[in-house]
């Protein structure tokens, strides 16, 4: 079971940090409380039985319909241990009103850019980050594209079924394709 080592380590050393743990598809996922996140990751990185030294990614999954029963964002961290050939997944849940997590950039150097990307595309802030700026979008962009309420739109493609929406009156062809027969 992938991630079992990390889950057991956290249960043993920091039992207060683990909110719950579940496994599916051969992978174990651990839900961590936000306040103990830095402690948990430092433990996983430094402990002899863990040695999860490689940050794989940080991202957030947006479930806007879960509010108000459950927090909106699932911030997912994955760390890899080369020594024990294992990786683990940690999830921190944050709400829409307070989408912040503590920064991990002092624990792993690679978290710098990963957290900036998460802020840019999803709007989840990493508190304590030395320079949280947009990374992939232009600096003055409005909005966070990967959120579910952000409408991703390029330009309307005109078909016959949406021609009133796609083209203004002046540009519509006099005979629509398919109508001439």
């Amino acid at each position, binding site marked *: 079971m992938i991630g079992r080592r990390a889950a057991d380590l956290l249960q043993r050393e920091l039992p207060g940090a683990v909110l719950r743990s579940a496994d599916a*598809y051969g992978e174990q996922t651990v839900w961590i409380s936000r306040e103990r996140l830095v402690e948990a990751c430092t433990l996983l990185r430094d402990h002899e039985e863990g040695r999860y030294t*490689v940050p794989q990614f940080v991202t957030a999954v947006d479930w806007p319909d879960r509010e108000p029963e459950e927090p909106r964002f699932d911030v997912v961290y994955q760390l890899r241990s080369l020594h024990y050939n294992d990786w683990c*997944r940690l999830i921190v849940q944050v709400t829409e009103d307070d989408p912040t997590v503590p920064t991990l950039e002092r624990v792993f150097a690679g978290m710098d850019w990963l957290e900036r990307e998460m802020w840019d595309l999803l709007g989840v802030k990493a508190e304590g980050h030395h320079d949280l700026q947009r990374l992939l979008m232009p600096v003055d962009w409005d909005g966070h594209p990967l959120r579910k309420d952000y409408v*991703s739109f390029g330009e309307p*493609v005109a078909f016959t079924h949406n021609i009133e929406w796609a083209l203004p009156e002046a540009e519509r062809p006099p005979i629509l394709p398919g109508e001439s027969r």
Partner: protein
Amino acid sequence: MTTAGPIGPPPKVDPLSDQYEHGRDVLGVETGLDSVDLVELDENTMELNMGPQHPSTHGVLRLVLNLDGEIVRECRPDIGYLHTGFEKDFERHTYQQCIPYTDRMDYLSPLFNNLGFSLAAEKLLDIEVPPRGQYLRVILCELTRIASHLLWYGTSALDLGATSPFLYAWRDREKLLDINELVSGVRMHTSFIRVGGLLADVPDDFNELIIEVLATFPRLIDEHELLITKNPIWRERTIGLGTLTPEDAMSYGATGPVLRGSGIPYDLRKAQPYSSYDHFDFDVPIGAHGDVYDRYLVRMQEMRESLRIIEQAFNNLPDGPVNTSDRRVALPSRNELNTSMESLIYHFKLVTEGFRPPRGQVYSAVESPRGELGFYMVSDGSNRPYRCKVRAPSFSNLSALPHMVRHELIADVVAVIGSIDIILGDVDR
């Protein structure tokens, strides 16, 4: 009257009216680059912009360099000039429709993206690809790895002033693109690896081309090495440069030849084998010092190891189907379609709506030529991925660049960027 068009419901403001904010009015904005603030270290430093349009940055990468004479004091990469919004596009297409999108991310090794996505979807669905499909996937992926390394070799030698390797490497790469074209009809972006197997079985001439590749490429790779490996100019320009210690490499999240060049023998094909890589016998080359020269040697040797894998896979290629027979994913066969109405309806629904994996989240990683390419896929039970995050190897490798070029000469920045082997489509997604 507004309808839900093929790309989703229309926005609340009519996009053709004046009030619609496109986010960035490209015609009205003054032509200039986004400013990136850099700390002025002292009065003697100069800020230099190595702009997005540059012959040696391997794509649209912008570096803001703080220079003291010729020595780089600080380097700040500014990325995002190729951001395409792949992850948003994944959320509004069905699984099989996402496969052509994955091709365009890491556009030099497109089959690895297809493979990573397919493996994640297959993990969610819990289906197994038959052995012939797995072996063919291995053969095609290793051919893509050789093609990608050849291209890297040609362009990074060109950056440092050697023009012949470029032409030699690309001439040989054409032979591999011929195989792609034979198998799928397209040179790049074949979208050949689909969820459940492959697009189709390979034709008969495939064997001849593979035998020719296996016969000629070892000598050709030796020829490429002969051009520059012992060349004193190359050695002067690359040895001892851009050193990355193993601890730093791990802390930045670097994987692939960047990690292996620093001495850590971690290769996903050996450590967590997928798609029957554990049936093959090959070695994992590692470097000793973690400099540009070691990464170069690692990649040249990886090409030879890929040839070994292709030979073993080709000689033991099993017979049988290439696609899974699981009815949730596999299209009904032609015979069935001719006789059964339900099969026809099912075929139609499977093609237009796609299959529905159960709820859950999986992560599946492959060893691409750049490192660990992973797909974190969250499914909510519908026919589209709810969230598909791509773990891009070039993104993490590039974040180690400022560390690697500190206190190097500005001409060496080019050599270091070449040695990381970044693809901006992968970095920016």
